[in-house]
C-alpha cells in the first residue's frame, strides 16, 4: 500500500510513470550492462541448442559420415569429407564443433527440464506446507531440511548409483536434488503473503482452497521463484556435466558437454587440448551467462531494493 503511494507521488528513478510493470522490469534489468551481456549469452546458447541440426557442419551421430581417419585432428585441419574442423575432432573422428552444438542441446534440455519439473513439484509442496500449516508444514519442512543438509552431489550419486545411466534417470536425479530449494523458497514467501488481507478476502468469498492457492497466493510468490529457478538451471547444467564427467550421468550415446569434456580428458596429457577445452568453454559460457542473468534478476525483483 505504502509502496504504491510513494511510487505515484515521486518516482525516484525519474522514469515516465506510465510504464507497465513489465516495461519497468525490462528497463530496470537493462541498467546493468553485464546482465544484458549475460542475457545475450543465454539467447545465443539457446538458439544454438534449438537449431543445432541445421547449423552444425556435420552430423556427429551419423556413423556413415564419421571417419576414424579423422580422429584427433587439430583445430583448422581438413577432414576426409572436405569439411574444415574449426575446433578439431575428437578421438572417434567427429567434428568437435558439431558435437558441441549437439552436446549443448542435451545439456540445456536436461537442465531446463529438470529445473522446470522440480519447480512444479517444489511449488506444489511448498504452497501446501505454507497454506495448511500445522503438522503438514512441520512434516514437509522436516523432509526439506533433512534433504538440504546433504550436498546435492551426494544425493545425485546415491540415486544414479541405484538407478543407472540414462537421460530420464539423470533428469529424475536432478529433480529430486532440486525440488527442496523451490519448496523452501516458495514456503517462505507464501507464509508472508498468506497473512495479507487479500488472502483473507479471498477466503471470505468462500473460494476453494485450490483457487486461493493457485490464483491468489502463487502469483504473488513468483519473483523469488524466478530467481531461484534461473540459478537452479545453471546449477543443474553444472551438476549434470559433473556427473557425466564422472561417468555416472548420461550414456555415451547421448554426449552432453560434460561427457565431451570427459572424453577429451584422456587425450589432454598428450597435448591434444582441444577435445576437452572447447566444450569446457561452452559449458562455462552457458553457466556464467545464466548466473549473470540470475544475479541481476535477484536485484531487480527484490522488493527491499526497490528504488
Amino acid at each position, binding site marked *: 500500500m505504502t509502496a504504491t503511494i510513494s511510487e505515484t507521488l515521486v518516482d525516484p528513478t525519474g522514469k515516465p510513470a506510465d510504464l507497465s510493470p513489465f516495461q519497468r522490469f525490462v528497463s530496470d534489468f537493462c541498467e546493468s550492462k553485464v546482465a544484458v551481456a549475460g542475457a545475450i549469452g543465454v539467447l545465443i546458447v539457446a538458439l544454438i541448442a534449438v537449431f543445432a541440426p541445421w547449423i552444425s557442419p556435420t552430423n556427429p551421430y551419423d556413423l556413415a559420415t564419421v571417419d576414424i581417419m579423422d580422429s584427433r585432428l587439430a583445430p583448422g585441419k581438413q577432414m576426409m569429407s572436405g569439411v574444415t574442423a574449426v575446433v578439431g575432432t575428437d578421438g572417434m573422428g567427429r567434428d568437435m564443433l558439431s558435437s558441441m552444438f549437439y552436446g549443448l542441446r542435451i545439456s540445456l534440455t536436461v537442465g531446463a527440464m529438470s529445473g522446470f519439473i522440480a519447480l512444479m513439484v517444489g511449488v506444489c509442496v511448498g504452497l501446501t506446507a505454507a497454506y495448511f500449516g500445522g503438522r503438514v508444514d512441520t512434516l514437509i519442512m522436516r523432509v526439506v531440511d533433512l534433504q538440504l543438509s546433504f550436498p546435492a552431489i551426494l544425493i545425485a550419486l546415491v540415486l544414479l548409483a541405484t538407478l543407472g545411466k540414462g537421460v530420464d534417470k539423470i533428469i529424475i536425479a536432478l529433480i529430486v536434488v532440486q525440488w527442496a530449494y523451490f519448496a523452501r523458497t516458495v514456503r517462505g514467501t507464501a507464509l508472508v503473503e498468506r497473512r495479507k488481507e487479500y488472502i483473507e478476502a479471498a477466503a471470505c468469498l468462500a473460494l476453494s482452497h485450490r483457487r486461493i492457492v493457485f490464483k491468489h497466493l502463487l502469483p504473488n510468490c513468483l519473483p523469488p521463484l524466478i530467481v531461484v529457478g534461473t540459478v537452479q538451471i545453471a546449477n543443474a547444467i553444472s551438476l549434470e556435466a559433473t556427473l557425466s564427467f564422472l561417468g555416472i550421468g548420461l550414456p555415451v550415446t547421448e554426449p552432453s558437454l560434460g561427457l565431451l569434456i570427459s572424453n577429451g580428458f584422456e587425450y*589432454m596429457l598428450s597435448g591434444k587440448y582441444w577435445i576437452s577445452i572447447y566444450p569446457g568453454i561452452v559449458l562455462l559460457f552457458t553457466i556464467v551467462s545464466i548466473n549473470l542473468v540470475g544475479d541481476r534478476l535477484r536485484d531487480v525483483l527484490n522488493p527491499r531494493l526497490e528504488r
Partner: protein
Amino acid sequence: MSVFIIRRLLQSVVVIWVMSLLVFGGVYLIGDPIDMLINPEADQEDIDAAIRALGLDKPIHEQYWFFLINALKGDLGSSFIFNEPALQLILARMPATMELAFASLFISIFFGIPLGMWAGLHPESIAGRSIMTGSILGFSLPSFWVGIMFIMFFAVILGVLPSGGRAETTEFLGMQVSFLSWDGLSHILLPAVNLALFKLSLVIRLSRAGTQEVIHQDYIKFARAKGVSEKRVILVHVLKNILIPVVTILGLEFGSVIAFAVVTETVFAWPGMGKLIIESIDQLDRPVIVAYLMIIVFMFIVINLVVDILYSVLDPRVRLQDVKA
C-alpha cells in the same frame, strides 16, 4: 541440556534408520538383487547356494532384518572385485580422503579469511572488487573443469606439478600421511586447491560480510578512540568477532567437502574413497556402493549432531526453543 542431546540423538537414529531403508530399497528392490550381489560369472549351483546364503528366498521384511542386523555388526558385504569386506576397503581409503579434505579446509581458512577481510575493509578498491569477482567464479565454475584447467596449466604446459596421484606415504602420529615430503606436497597442492575453491569463496563472502558488519560497531569505534593501533583493531577486534560464524559454517560444510572429494579425486586420480565409489559404480560393485553410502550418511549425521550440540552450547536460545516445541 541433556533433554536436547537425547532428542537430537533419537532424531539421528531415526534418520539413519530411514537411510538404511532407502539404501536397502534402492539396491535390493529396484534392480535384481541376484544380479547385483552375486558374481555374474558364478554357475547355477553357486547362484542357488548364494541365494540361500544371502536369504534372498525369504520374504522381504526378513531380508531387510537380515541386512540391518549384519550392518549393525559392521558387515556390509564383500566386494566382488577385491574380494575383501567392503567396510575395510573403504576405511583403508579414508585417510587419503581425509588428508585432502583437511588440506583444503586449511587453504579455505588461511586464504579465505584474510582475502575476505581485505575485501570487507576496502570494498571499493580494485583488489577488493577482484576478490569478490573471483569468489563469484569460485561458486559458479564447475569444479571438475577448474581441476582440468589446473592439470592443463601446471602439469601439461608448465610441467611444474604432477598431474595426479598421491606420493609415498610416511607414518605420522600413527597415520599414513603424504604431506610431509616435498614430493607429497607437490602432489596434494593442486587437488587441495581445487577442492578448496568452493569453500574458499564461501569463506571470503562470510568474512567480508562479517567484517563490514563488525567494522561499524561501537566497540570498534571505541577501540580506535582509545588509540589502539589499526593493526590491532583488525587483527584482534575484528578478526575475533568474525571467526565464530566462519568456523561454525565451515564445520557444517566439512561433510560436503568429503562428498565433493568424489569429483576432485576422480580428476586428479587421488586414491581416496571418492575414487573408489566411482570405480565401484562403474564396475557394479554393489556391496562397496552400499557400504560407502551408509558410511557417508553416518558421517554426515554425526557432523550435524556435533554442530547442533555445539550450537546449543554457544547459543542457549536454540535449545530452549527446541525443548518448548
